[in-house]
């Protein structure tokens, strides 16, 4: 593996010196034939890749007018250039969002605009050479689709859509990324990103029941495939497997226990995450989402609640209705059946934070806040929750609700610097399908802006715990915090804090 180095924290957050090609060697492993073909993509780079790539681009432009608008409307004003965490951390000018998206914009001009066809040089049109295609592979895999740059774009260009289109074109010519595509294959085959089969899941959940009994004295259950349960909880499979993720899963179970609500997990839909979003492939995204509908129909649940996972909540909030009929919108037979089954007095789907906060507001949960007194907590907004979804009934609910929960369960809370939180939050550095070991150097560098604001509140406010509601953020920070001199265990979930403080009625 290449050397992994963390840049020094900057005293003033000024843009870095430009270092051309600083990250030209960074790229994820290319998906091998077996992984590509398992999800219906060509096994390797096809011979007529140029023709196919341009053809696929044309189809995307036809199907998504938004893409054409994003490619047409950029005026190169530069407002985005210093907003990307990967540019700030690496100095590579191709990581300025405008330059990264120009890798595709040039090809678009050459093949899909009159001026570009006639006078390519005058309008910055570029041919799609193998070198350009390789640059796509490198630099679109240095974009975590976090959409921070879009917040600052005066034209509202959603650069993540351009990255997603590039990844889709690359997949269509057999130039896929191993990490994301292997995971998608596992979901189709086994039901979750980890490849955790039903019996292993059952064994893991039984172990958690034992642990929680030991800790609390209460019979907190972790039900699996329980027909007739009121709630289906869909959560990232990392919650079953990894630390600190599992602490939040225990938190959800305690909330359901305290509320006296019957709930269940599903071995068929044992994954909230949906990497189909990351690779910009609607069919993959739909196929993954349909598992949740199938599980909901099979189990007969009335509510679907989503655990702490950033992009899963984006897919659930923004796409599940038309992808799978969860929520209003779908009009096929199964969607109609599901909609008559779900209890529409509740938001469908509901985020676990909305659920917990509703209970807190109703006075249905009580807490021993001092159980979190050894912590000074800050909250890291995860990009897909912050910039691509909402919670609750008021604008900004996705910012307020997690913070409200933290403040209800812990006494010490400190905000990070404005401009690095809420809609302007910085990506953890590992989102969008980049959470893979061979990209560790990029991930460490991309975490720089977040680490700078964390350092400020750690030194100035005594912060020793950064709460977040995303499995990728949790895994990424656990890995990269030590590179910046922090303890890896200072990151955890909002429901980890809930778990520590919640009072369970039948404690003895």
């Amino acid at each position, binding site marked *: 593996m290449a050397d992994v180095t963390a840049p020094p924290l900057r005293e003033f957050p000024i843009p870095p010196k430009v270092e051309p090609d600083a990250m030209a060697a960074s790229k994820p492993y290319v998906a091998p034939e077996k992984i590509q073909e398992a999800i219906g993509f060509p096994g390797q780079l096809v011979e007529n890749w140029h023709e196919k790539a341009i053809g696929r681009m044309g189809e995307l432009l036809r199907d998504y007018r938004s893409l054409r608008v994003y490619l047409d409307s950029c005026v190169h004003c530069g407002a985005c250039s210093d907003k990307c965490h990967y540019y700030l951390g690496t100095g590579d000018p191709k990581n300025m969002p405008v330059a990264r998206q120009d890798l595709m914009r040039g090809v678009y001009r050459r093949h899909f605009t009159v001026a570009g066809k006639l006078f390519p040089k005058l309008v910055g049109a570029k041919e799609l050479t193998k070198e350009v295609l390789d640059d796509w592979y490198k630099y679109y895999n240095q974009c975590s689709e976090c959409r921070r740059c879009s917040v600052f774009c005066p034209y509202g260009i959603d650069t993540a859509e351009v990255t997603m289109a590039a990844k889709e074109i690359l997949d269509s010519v057999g130039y896929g990324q191993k990490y994301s595509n292997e995971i998608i294959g596992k979901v189709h085959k086994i039901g979750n990103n980890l490849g955790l089969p039903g019996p292993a899941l059952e064994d893991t959940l039984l*172990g958690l029941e034992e642990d929680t009994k030991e800790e609390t004295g209460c019979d907190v259950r972790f039900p699996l495939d329980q027909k007739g349960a009121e709630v289906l909880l869909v959560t990232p499979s990392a919650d079953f497997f990894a630390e600190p993720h599992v602490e939040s899963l225990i938190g959800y179970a305690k909330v359901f226990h305290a509320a006296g609500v019957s709930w269940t997990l599903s071995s068929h839909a044992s994954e909230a995450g949906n990497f189909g979003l990351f690779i910009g492939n609607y069919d993959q995204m739909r196929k993954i989402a349909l598992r949740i509908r199938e599980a909901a129909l099979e189990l007969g649940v009335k509510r679907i609640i989503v655990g702490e996972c950033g992009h899963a909540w984006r897919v659930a909030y923004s796409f599940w209705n038309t992808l799978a009929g969860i929520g209003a919108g779908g009009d096929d037979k199964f969607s109609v059946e599901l909609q008559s089954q779900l209890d529409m007095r509740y938001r469908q789907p509901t985020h676990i934070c909305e659920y917990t906060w509703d209970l807190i507001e109703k006075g249905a949960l009580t807490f021993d806040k001092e159980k979190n007194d050894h912590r000074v907590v800050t909250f890291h907004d995860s990009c897909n929750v912050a910039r691509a979804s909402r919670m609750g009934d008021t604008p900004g609910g996705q910012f307020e609700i997690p913070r409200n929960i933290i403040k209800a369960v812990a006494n010490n809370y400190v905000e990070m610097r404005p401009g690095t939180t809420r809609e302007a939050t910085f990506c953890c550095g590992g989102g969008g399908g980049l959470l893979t070991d061979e990209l560790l150097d990029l991930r460490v560098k991309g975490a720089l802006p977040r680490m700078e604001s964390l350092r400020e509140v750690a030194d100035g406010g005594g912060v020793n715990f950064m709460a977040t509601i995303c499995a990728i953020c949790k895994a990424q920070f656990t890995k990269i915090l030590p590179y910046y001199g922090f303890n890896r265990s200072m990151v955890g979930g909002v429901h980890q804090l809930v778990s520590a403080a919640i009072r369970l009625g039948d404690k003895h």
Partner: protein
Amino acid sequence: MAIEVNGKTYETDEEGYLVNLADWDKDIAAAIAVEEKIDMTDNHWEVVNFLREYYDEYQIAPAVRVLTKAIGKKLGAEKASNQYLYELFPYGPAKQACKIAGLPKPTGCV
């Protein structure tokens, strides 16, 4: 990629994970450990052996909690922690220990 042990060559992926689970034996594990700069003690072997046993039964590596609990039972309650596993396998117990145990790399948001 490949790893050579006792004069025989075994196929690995780009990151050094064994491609064929059935190839694994203790000599190969020891050779991978050398590449990972891990000095294998009895406690390391306890972890590796448990991973193998669990994988045989469930076709997946155990969750970190399952692993810490099992190690606690074998090596004493004070060693039942994620922190202790990181001391044994600094790159992360899930991935590094799996690699030495000849198991596939855990995927997903871990």
